[in-house]
């Protein structure tokens, strides 16, 4: 690693240690720590795995086993905004498939992941919990219901900073 990288990495480690220490609930575990870090910096870099292992008196191996199990965790930096699209059976019946198609096109991707400009991360969700308003999408966890392929594509383009 170059000096600049090392410096960045130690800054990140310091930031992560602060997040780990700031957990307020009485029960603190590997999982609660990983959730806290991802809530704060939106992904789990290597530094997070290592710091969590040290903080919890666990091993890197153990922490990886937990982090890789839960599908909300991600290990690379996400885009500036996250767009969740629900593909659960209820949304499926009212058109989730078409929403996915149009969002893929608007973000110029074919599956979950970042748009080529790195601005938006697309995530599939198995149920966003507002099925009565289906099809449902969410921007940074904020839900928006009753989508059409057009409205969802418009939102996706706007998130990329493109005028619709």
């Amino acid at each position, binding site marked *: 690693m170059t000096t600049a990288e090392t410096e960045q990495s130690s800054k990140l480690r310091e930031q992560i240690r602060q997040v780990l220490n700031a957990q307020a609930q009485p029960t603190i575990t590997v999982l*609660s720590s990983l*959730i806290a870090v991802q809530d704060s910096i939106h992904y789990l870099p290597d530094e997070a795995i290592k710091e969590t292992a040290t903080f919890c008196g666990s091993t890197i191996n153990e922490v990886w086993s937990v982090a890789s199990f839960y599908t909300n965790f991600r290990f690379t930096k996400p885009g500036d905004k996250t767009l969740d699209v629900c593909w659960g059976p209820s949304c499926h019946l009212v058109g989730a498939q078409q929403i996915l198609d149009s969002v893929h096109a608007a973000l110029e991707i074919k599956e979950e992941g970042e748009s080529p400009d790195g601005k938006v991360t697309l995530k*599939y969700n198995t149920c966003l919990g507002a099925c009565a308003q289906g099809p449902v999408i969410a921007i940074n*966890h904020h839900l928006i219901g009753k989508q059409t392929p057009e409205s969802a594509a418009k939102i996706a383009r706007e998130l990329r900073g493109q005028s619709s």
Partner: protein
Amino acid sequence: MSTPFEDLQARAAKRWSELTEGESAWIRVGGGTSGQAAGADAVLEAFKSSVESTGVNANVSMVSAMGLMYLEPQVDILMPNGARVYYGNVEPEEAKAIVEQHVKEGKPLTERAFAYSGGDGTGVGNLPELQSMPMVSLQQRIATRNFGDTDPHDLLQYVANGGYTALNRALTEMTPAEIVDEVKAAGLRGRGGAAFPAGVKWSFLAPSDAPVKYVLCNCEEGDPGAFNDKGIIENDPHTLVEGLIINGYATRSTHGYIFIRTGHELPIESARKAIAAAYEAGLLGKNILGTDFSFDMEVSLTGDSYVAGEETALMEAIEGKRSTPRFKPPFPAAAGLWQKPTNINNVKTLAYVPEIVRNGSDWFKSIGTETTSGTAIVCLSGHITYPGMYEVPMGMTIREVLEKVGGGVSVGERIKVLQAGGPLNGLLGEDAFDTMIDFDAMSAAGASIGSGGIIVGNETVNVVDLLRSLIAFNQFESCGKCFPCRLGNTHMLEILDRMCQNKAKSADLALLERVGTSMKAGSLCGHGQLGFNPIASALKYFGDEIKSCLAGEIAPGGVFGDGTMILPTRTRP
């Protein structure tokens, strides 16, 4: 001298009368996850700023959602004269006119409102009374009794409406054993899926004298189509907190956990605030309400994992590990969370407890059917006219719920298929719509109340496509610990893919059934054991349709387009 609880009640009564009996109008905007998805936040802001700019005397608050989700964003206005008028599908742009005409000039916009309640008995224009609407009058609200009325973040509003009287009564007038007996006598069966009698489960934990014992509340609620657990927590968290404290007292436990999936921000925030408020009011912590009972509670978050809702996997998750199920025995009452004696119940199960303790087991038993007392909290979504969350007495038929409460099919001509109770449970066809909603009647029909979700599909829904969506979910969510489930779901999905692509052979049906049988026999937990249910029930109600997909009869570009679907599939590392 007054007791600590009487002091709390006095403060609560004062707060409630300020809100409902003063000179100010009270504008209530329905919140919750569904309200948010419909745009309630912007409506709330619009009412706040309209009240400010108009200078009228009114309180504006975000309250719990009423459950009539098709009318969201929903707003109601309680005027100082006691009349309450309800507006549905409100746009932020309408706020100013409603505030000016209704609140300032006292002229409700009856053409925009859908109902009224209360008042001097002369009605409001020609609006129907709220109670006369079938989707309201057919409900019997116990666990959801405060929905639409109170601010979930205000403990005093809960107390003002009878909250925590059950806990006070339990702690000061009843022994733990009496409460267990009361819950047993009420016939309260678990609402998390397995329908096990709650009082009986509590009686496994109660006798242990271990110094640390846990009671857990399961709000994982990963079932697509179900939103009643999160609904209760975000709309009336104190009914759950009160139920869990009573559960703790009755089983002589020391700690409670409310278990929620990360990312569901409204229910998480609501549970955390409710617990903090309960501590502050002396309802949690040391010597609750001045008695010698002490009990602690916290929220525990899990990552995204459907199987984390299985009771032993949930304990692994609270311990911070991968949420894979444990072998049983030992059962949780002997060695559960951190190997300590533990009880676990679903949110809905616990949410009934305060009312059971307050009104007695006979009252609860008088509601519902012989074998399933109480109510069902159903969530309607899909092709239904009035999607929402409704609490109806057990024993109502599915058809009544669909037609009278849900208003029938929304688009298309008829309701063809239902997915009831989550992706480990069955599909139902029209032949089964006269089934009573009751645990035993539903399971005889090959389905389950399960989590209470009912996803409605019209005649355009292709059953194989719906099955594929359900099995894709189950495959995605298999925890991978045992191979019949991990591989079986993948195998079933491949076969369904072939069917969708018009490439299936007639032998594939027997293969599906063989895989299903192996999963049932060889899987460790319910996820694998029940995973064939959707297909088994679909074969019962839609056998011909499924068989037609085996014969290679679908024209290319037909129901499945070119047959390439992009539902994500993956197995866990």
